[in-house]
């Protein structure tokens, strides 16, 4: 027969997973429409049948800011490096809320998609990555509020605002990397899921959300910066509020850590991928 199929595919299934690519971007690209619809489903259904709808994306960081401002700003008088505490904390809450909510939903994502995993094939990586993309919508909304607040307080951003996209990438790599680790672990060990939710809440205190990094003794700052969100949050403050010089060392360490998280997460996810349907 002479007819040849242009997009002819040969699929080989065998127990050897060593020759698979770390991340098969080509396949994810093939399934890009699925990726899009999963992101869109999460956004569309997250606030379905609620009165405030997407308003909930605003309420969480805004109310956290109000409570923090009262307790840490007014009562405990935490140093906010010369800007009003409200904007000091909100600038940190915008990236932090993105990070914690996308990581929380990425770590539960495989368990929640159990039904898909056991019924159909598609690149599994789409599942933990789609909440990381989806939460960008909420992030965008809270960023708009931050801009409003900056106008209100008359804060003028620095030239380093141009660095914000880099910080966003670092924060997404971290959330995706940690998310791949946690979700691949939690489909086998459900403890991880409960532990992760709790740990993420605690991690807020290990990030400069309610306080500034300057309160951490100089010699411990390097260790502190192993949490990539430290560099991201301080970077946001330096760029938007100009309260401090751009903390290149924190950002550098954090970025390396973010890349390490992402690569190791993808590696672990790939090595466990073939068992997901069996242990789900």
């Amino acid at each position, binding site marked *: 027969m002479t007819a040849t199929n242009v997009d002819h*595919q040969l699929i*080989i299934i065998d*127990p050897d997973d060593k020759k698979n690519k770390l991340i098969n971007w080509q396949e994810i690209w093939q399934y890009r429409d699925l990726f899009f*619809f999963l992101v869109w489903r999460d956004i569309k*259904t997250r606030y379905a049948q609620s009165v405030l709808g997407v308003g909930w994306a605003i309420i969480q960081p805004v109310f956290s800011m109000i409570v923090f401002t009262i307790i840490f700003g007014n009562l405990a008088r935490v140093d906010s490096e010369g800007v009003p505490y409200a904007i000091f904390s909100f600038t940190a809450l915008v990236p932090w809320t993105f990070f914690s909510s996308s990581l929380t939903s990425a770590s539960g994502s495989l368990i929640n998609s159990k039904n898909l995993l056991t019924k*159909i094939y598609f690149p599994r990586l789409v599942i933990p990555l789609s909440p990381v993309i989806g939460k960008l919508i909420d992030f965008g909304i809270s960023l708009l509020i931050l801009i409003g607040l900056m106008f209100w307080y008359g804060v003028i951003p620095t030239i380093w605002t141009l660095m914000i996209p880099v910080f966003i990438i670092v924060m997404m790599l971290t959330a995706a990397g940690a998310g791949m680790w946690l979700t691949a672990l939690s489909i*086998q060990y459900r403890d991880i899921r409960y532990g992760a939710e709790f740990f993420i809440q605690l991690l807020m205190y290990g990030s400069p959300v309610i306080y500034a990094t300057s309160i951490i003794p100089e010699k411990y700052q390097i260790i502190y910066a192993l949490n990539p969100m430290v560099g991201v949050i301080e970077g946001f403050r330096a760029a938007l509020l100009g309260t401090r010089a751009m903390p290149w060392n924190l950002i550098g360490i954090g970025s390396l850590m973010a890349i390490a998280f992402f690569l190791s997460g993808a590696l672990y996810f790939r090595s466990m991928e073939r*068992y997901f349907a069996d242990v789900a």
Partner: protein
Amino acid sequence: MPSHAIKVENLSKRYRIGFEQQRKDSLAEVIFDWFSKPIKNYRRLRNLTQFDQQLEDSQDIIWALKDINFTIHPGEVIGVIGNNGAGKSTLLKVLSRITYPTNGKVELNGRVSSLLEVGTGFHPELTGRENVYLNGTILGMTKKEIDRKFDEIVGFSGVSKFIDTPVKFYSSGMRVRLAFSVAAHLEPEILLIDEVLSVGDAAFQRKSLGKMEEVSKRGRTVLFVSHNMGAIRSLCTRGILLKDGQLAMDGDVDQVINAYLTGNEVSAEGKVIFSEQDIPDDNEFGILSVELLTLTGEVKSAFQIDEGFEIHIKYKIIEPVKNQRINLRFITSLGETVFATYEDAQIREGFIREPGTYKAICQIPPNLLNNLTYRIRIGFDSPGYKVLIPGKEYLGVDIVDTSEGYRYADGAFDGPIRPKAEWSVEDISS
């Protein structure tokens, strides 16, 4: 075109099943257990993905598939049959890349779609339209492809009026029809299907079977798992029979179906005999066994449509029971009761059945049931007093039609039953 669409070589799949629970007899054991449990749990969970060499032969490992070999040529339509637990679904899951083989190799030549369930990923809060897109992309279609086929999909489903209504307001039938329509419009080169035709009402099943037949005629390679012998027979040319994870037979579909129906393969399925520990009972009563038999006394789970059969129920009575009766129901795969029948001929005021072992026989007449799979639910009660053993489905029965005369009917007729009505036509024009 390549010489094979699917090539399976020495395929094996090993699963680890749950460990048995140990019983605790003392408080000390219970307390010790609290502390040792995390370690045990960790080992158990870790072992789900690790198979240590020394554990190779341990009891909790089962081989769902063992050394399967076959080659399927492009355009072939293959029916995979076998008892429950024979490995049919595992085979389909391995071919669909949902789960991975332990040993062996599979080659798939061409674009593959698998349908292990209709409506995978349907979200109740989304509208019909949105779910068509979501489900379609999950099944591997692109948005462009769905855009192009959208009207056809909705038209086929017959729910076009409600396409912008959230699916949670749909009836289950509407949901299934919409989901199946999406699946029916896939255009893969290789299609893997698991028992999905058992959903939907009979008219829609017929329509779906028709659609499938159309697909297979267009040169697609189809691998089709079903208990519905009528559907297998009308769709497939070649059959593969699995037994205990191994390939028992591979050949002409009629021969394979006959081997499945007449061979010993089904005897294990046509009966349930309860061992001492798991007798469904309360203190005064217990079911010993339930069996399906031909009129000549052979235990089977599949019967010809024009063949009557018997259901034998053995039970024991420990304490005298007032007004004891048996109720038996035939239930379709959709969960609808086809009919109920009661063993209550002797019931009257003050009737008591004394302790002992009893056998009840229920005769099912020929030409009553349709060629479908039914589940048989059996319960015991004392009307007006109490339920002795709540109704439970113990057995499935396949009614098959392999007669030549019905070749033009795709699978089952409409409706849950198919009595043989007498017809006559006379010429009254003169």
